[in-house]
C-alpha cells in the first residue's frame, strides 16, 4: 500500500505498476559504481530482487535500476588475514553452504542455513537482506553480533559501516554494498537461536581474549530493530549457575525498545536470558542444541 502524497488516501499498486526505469546490467563492481555515480543518486541496486519489488510496490520510484547479477566479484568468499569476507551478492543458499564460511564460522553457516524458505534462499542475497531494513529479516541480527563491517564502494572511494548503522541511513549515500567482513574469525565462537522465532531470536558471539571472552548478544524480533548487549565472560564462569547469572545480567540490559504492541520487553528480556544461557552452555561446554 502507498499513502498518496496529497493525503487523499491509500492505493494498492500490484506488480503490474512498477514505474519505468533505466536498466543497467554491469559486469564489474567498478562499472556498477561508475553507473551509480552517473545516475546522480536516484538509482537502486537490484540483487535477488525479493525485497526491491516490494519497495517498488510501496512507492519507491528510481530513475535507474542497476542489476548486480552479472557481477561475479559480489559472490566471492575470502579469508584474508583473520577477516572473513562474504560477497554481498551471495544468496542465502550459496553463502551458508560455502566451505570457507562453514569452516571459518560454523555457527554462522548453521544459522544462515535456516533463515527464510527454501525457495527464497535460492534467490535472496545477504546484502539484500540487510539493506531491506526489515526487522523480521534476520541477517542483521547475526552479523551485528559478529561485529561485521559492511564494505561499501562508491566512485573513487570505499567506506565501511557497522550493521546498526544501516538502519539510520540509506545505502544510496554510501554506494554499493560489496562485502561483509567479519573480523578475528579465529577467535570467534558463534551461536544463533531462532527456536522462538518470530517472537524473538538471539545471536551470540564469544570472542576469545586471553583469560576472558567478550560476549556480544543481539536480540531481534519481527517489529523491532536488533539490539545489542556486550559483556565479559570469565573462563572460570562458575558452571551452569554462573552462566545463568551471566545470561540474566546480560539480558536485563536489553533496552525497552525491544518491546512492541504484541510482545512486551519484559517477556523478551526474560526469554532472551533463557536462550542466552543455553547458547553460552553450547559455546562454552559444547552442549548439543
Amino acid at each position, binding site marked *: 500500500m502507498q499513502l498518496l502524497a496529497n493525503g487523499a488516501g491509500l492505493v494498492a499498486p*500490484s*506488480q*503490474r505498476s*512498477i*514505474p*519505468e*526505469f*533505466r*536498466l543497467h*546490467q554491469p559486469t564489474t563492481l567498478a562499472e556498477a559504481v561508475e553507473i551509480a555515480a552517473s545516475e546522480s543518486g536516484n538509482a537502486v541496486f*537490484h540483487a535477488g*530482487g*525479493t525485497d526491491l*519489488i*516490494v519497495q517498488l*510496490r510501496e512507492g519507491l520510484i528510481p530513475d535507474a*535500476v542497476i*542489476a548486480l*547479477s552479472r557481477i561475479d566479484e559480489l559472490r566471492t568468499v575470502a579469508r584474508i588475514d583473520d577477516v572473513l569476507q562474504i560477497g554481498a551478492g551471495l544468496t542465502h543458499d550459496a553463502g551458508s553452504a560455502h566451505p570457507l564460511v562453514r569452516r571459518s564460522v560454523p555457527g554462522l553457516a548453521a544459522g544462515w542455513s535456516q533463515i527464510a*524458505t*527454501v*525457495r*527464497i534462499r*535460492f*534467490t535472496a542475497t545477504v546484502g539484500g537482506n540487510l539493506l531491506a531494513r526489515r526487522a523480521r529479516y534476520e541477517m542483521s541480527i547475526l552479523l551485528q553480533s559478529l561485529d561485521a563491517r559492511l564494505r561499501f564502494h562508491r566512485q573513487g572511494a570505499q567506506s565501511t559501516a557497522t550493521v546498526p548503522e544501516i538502519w539510520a541511513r540509506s545505502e544510496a549515500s554510501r554506494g554499493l554494498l560489496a562485502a561483509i567482513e567479519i573480523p578475528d574469525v579465529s577467535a570467534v565462537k558463534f551461536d544463533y537461536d531462532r527456536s522462538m522465532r518470530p517472537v524473538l531470536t538471539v545471536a551470540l558471539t564469544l570472542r576469545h581474549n586471553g583469560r576472558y571472552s567478550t560476549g556480544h548478544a543481539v536480540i531481534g524480533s519481527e517489529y523491532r530493530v536488533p539490539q545489542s548487549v556486550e559483556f565479559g565472560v570469565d573462563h572460570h564462569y562458575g558452571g551452569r549457575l554462573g552462566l545463568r547469572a551471566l545470561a540474566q545480567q546480560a539480558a536485563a540490559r536489553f533496552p525497552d525498545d525491544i518491546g512492541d504492541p504484541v510482545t512486551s520487553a519484559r517477556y523478551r528480556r526474560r526469554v532472551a536470558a533463557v536462550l542466552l544461557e543455553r547458547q553460552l552452555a553450547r559455546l562454552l561446554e559444547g552442549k548439543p542444541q
Partner: protein
Amino acid sequence: MKEPNEVSLRVNGTDHHLGVPANTLLLDVLRDRLRHRGVKASCQRGVCGACTVLVDGTPTASCSTFAFQVDGRSVECVDGAADDPVLAAAQQGFRECAGFQCGFCTGGMLMLTTALLRQAPDPGRELIAQWISSNICRCTGYEMILESVARAAEILRESQVGEP
C-alpha cells in the same frame, strides 16, 4: 545486436524473443504475453509462492523476478510442460493423493515438487515439509500435499525401474 528491451527465454521448451520494458515482471510475461494462465499471483511479494516457476531448474517467484533476469534462461511452468517426467510424476501424485483443493497454489506447489524431486529422488517427510514450507496452501492443511510429494517420488522411482 539485440534491442535493449529484448529478452530471449525458453518457456517449457519453446524459445521466445520478446520486446518487454525493463519494469516488466516474469509473471506478466508468462500470464499476459505467453498466456500461461496456470501461473497465478496472490501476495505479489514473493511470500505465498502461487507464482512459482522454475528458472534454470530453480524454484523462483515470478512475481518478484523481472523479465530481464531470465534473459537467456530456461523457464518451466505448470501449463504446457507435461512431457517432463518429473513434473508428470508430481502431477500424478497430486491427483492420486488430492494434494490440492481450490487449485490456486497448485501450479506453484507442483513446480516446487518438480525441483525437489530432481535433486532428491527419495526425500523424507522432513525434507518435503521443508520445501513445501516455501509456499502457502490455505485449503489442505498440507498433510495431503506432503503425501502427494512422497507419492510422486514413488511414481518416479517405479517408472525408472528397468531403465538403463
